[in-house]
């Protein structure tokens, strides 16, 4: 029946159009705050306080220079880069070694160790604040870079992802390497690592973004601006310039831009990584 089919097609099209429109509205709702902070950051103070509000960006660049001069941003950026970079390096090394042990080598109690590692996911971070504060103070690591790097130097997500990778590695590859007389470390360095690159990049990106965005931990464990990361710096800036909305908006823009750029370039990989976490906890 062509008429019926036509009606069905029309209904399908109109539903697709309506849902597309709804999707667009949702997208605007999610993206709008980013637009709005840019608008505010380029507006003069008078313009920001006017009613009704102006939805187009102004041309006031002065907010940026004022906000930039208001804190030791360069130091915060360098601290963040250093902490994030060191954490990523440490996580990759610990995950690669542990993933190899759990995914390739055979030893008694392997399943038990894997289960123990996965059960670490059950320990909520907020619970660790008090005892880790005590541990770090005993180590004399409070208010240092160490306190922000080493405690995050191993990742269940990283170990699990690499174990899965090693587990899926063809046995022939391991055997061929054995035939060539490769040692375990040679195998890891020359064969496994290049193949594991996609997984390593995903882990690295996640750890990098997480340490760029981290706040609570460094907020508790450090007190000097010369070791603090960007978000703690921004929070302090917010505390002291809480009513300078144009300057604050500028600070929000320039502190968030780097992580935004990383996200835009790596979004597909990040999405795959997030989907993989479902598998990680589903067991």
């Amino acid at each position, binding site marked *: 029946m062509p008429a019926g089919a036509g009606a069905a097609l029309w209904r399908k099209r109109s539903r*697709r159009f309506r849902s*597309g429109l*709804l*999707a*667009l509205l*949702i*997208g*605007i*709702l*999610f*993206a709008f*705050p980013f637009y*709005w*902070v840019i608008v505010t950051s380029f507006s003069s103070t008078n313009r920001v306080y006017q*009613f*009704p*509000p102006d939805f187009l960006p102004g041309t006031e660049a002065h907010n940026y220079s004022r906000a930039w001069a208001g804190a030791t941003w360069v130091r915060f950026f360098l601290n963040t880069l250093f902490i994030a970079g060191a954490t990523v390096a440490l996580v990759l090394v*610990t*995950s690669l*070694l*542990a993933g190899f*042990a759990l995914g*390739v*080598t055979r030893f008694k109690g*392997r399943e038990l160790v894997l289960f123990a*590692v996965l059960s670490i996911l*059950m*320990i*909520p971070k907020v*619970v660790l*604040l*008090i*005892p880790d*504060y005590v541990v770090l103070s005993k180590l004399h690591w409070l208010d240092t870079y160490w306190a922000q790097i*080493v*405690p995050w*130097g*191993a990742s269940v997500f990283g170990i699990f992802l690499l174990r899965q990778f090693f587990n899926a590695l063809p046995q022939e590859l391991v055997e061929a*390497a*054995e*035939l060539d*007389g490769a*040692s375990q470390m040679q195998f890891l360095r020359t064969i496994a690592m290049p193949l594991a690159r996609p997984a390593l990049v995903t882990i690295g990106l996640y750890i990098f973004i997480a340490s*760029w*965005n981290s*706040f*609570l931990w460094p907020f*508790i464990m450090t007190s000097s601006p010369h070791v603090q990361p960007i978000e703690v710096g*921004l929070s302090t800036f*917010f505390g002291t310039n809480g009513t300078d909305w144009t300057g*604050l908006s500028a600070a*929000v823009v320039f*502190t968030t831009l780097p*992580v935004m750029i990383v996200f835009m370039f790596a*979004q597909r990989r990040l*999405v795959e990584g*997030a*989907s993989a976490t479902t598998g990680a906890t*589903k*067991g």
Partner: protein
Amino acid sequence: MTAVDAVVRPQRSSRRRAGRIGIRDGRFALLYLSPALIVFGVFTIGPALFVLYISLFDWNLLNSSLSTFTGLHNYRALGSSADFWHSIVASVYFVGCVVAGSTVFGLGIALLLSSRGLVRRVVRLAVLTPYFTPLVATSIVWVWIFNPQYGLLDSLLRMLHLPMVGWLQSTTWAMPAVIFYTLWHDLGFTVIIFLAGLATVSTDLREAARVDGARYRHEIRDVVLPQLTQTIVFVIVITTIDSLQAFTQIYTMTQGGPLQATTTTGFLLYQESFVFFHTGFGAAIAVVLFAVIALFTLLQLRVSRSRSQ
């Protein structure tokens, strides 16, 4: 056994005799595991037990040798603390709304975005972006939007000739504002999980339902949802665990106020331990939170096990 094996074997055993270690040999496994295990032991597993110990003391954070053992006193104090019970109510409010919102809107948005097309791809990116951007920075943006005098939302209310509500300065509206922000920031993650779940739903069944003339909502209710049960449970549990620990947005947007209206149990833990230095009391709160979260995790494991069997 193949011919290749037969050739390979003698060679391998000769290597072994020469003291070579095979790649799958497990004798150094613990050595390889040790860097990760040391980090976990010192900073995660050890402290998780240590917090139990601390909760039994009147603990001195600045000089732990001045701590005195008080047994279960902190737990008794917790039971009779009005602040604690108030924070439980606030947590149930916050967690309940965030979990319900993440699940319902997350699934709804994922369904909207699961088909192909440029618009949907761009929208997906827009929905994901907040999740990967910092909580402090984006909270500040929303504090500005919620500003009671010049903020965008109150301006909109004024344009519509509605009363302005004051948002973060109102004991009634501060919590909804923080919840709204949290959903805005975190929905991206839930959407990714639901999109991954939807990708595993059998398209044959969906098409069969459509051919049988099922309406869209029936197709979703009768075909898609039953296949997504496990994903839904996962999302509920993971958002419960995360929102029980929410801190940064509360600290940035309201500092737990006004009048403790947004002081959840996780925020109270911070305040008691690091602002008032009631460390033992804070540790007792941590132990309670730990127990609740462990319960939820076990529940999730249980459900996903029984599903996969």
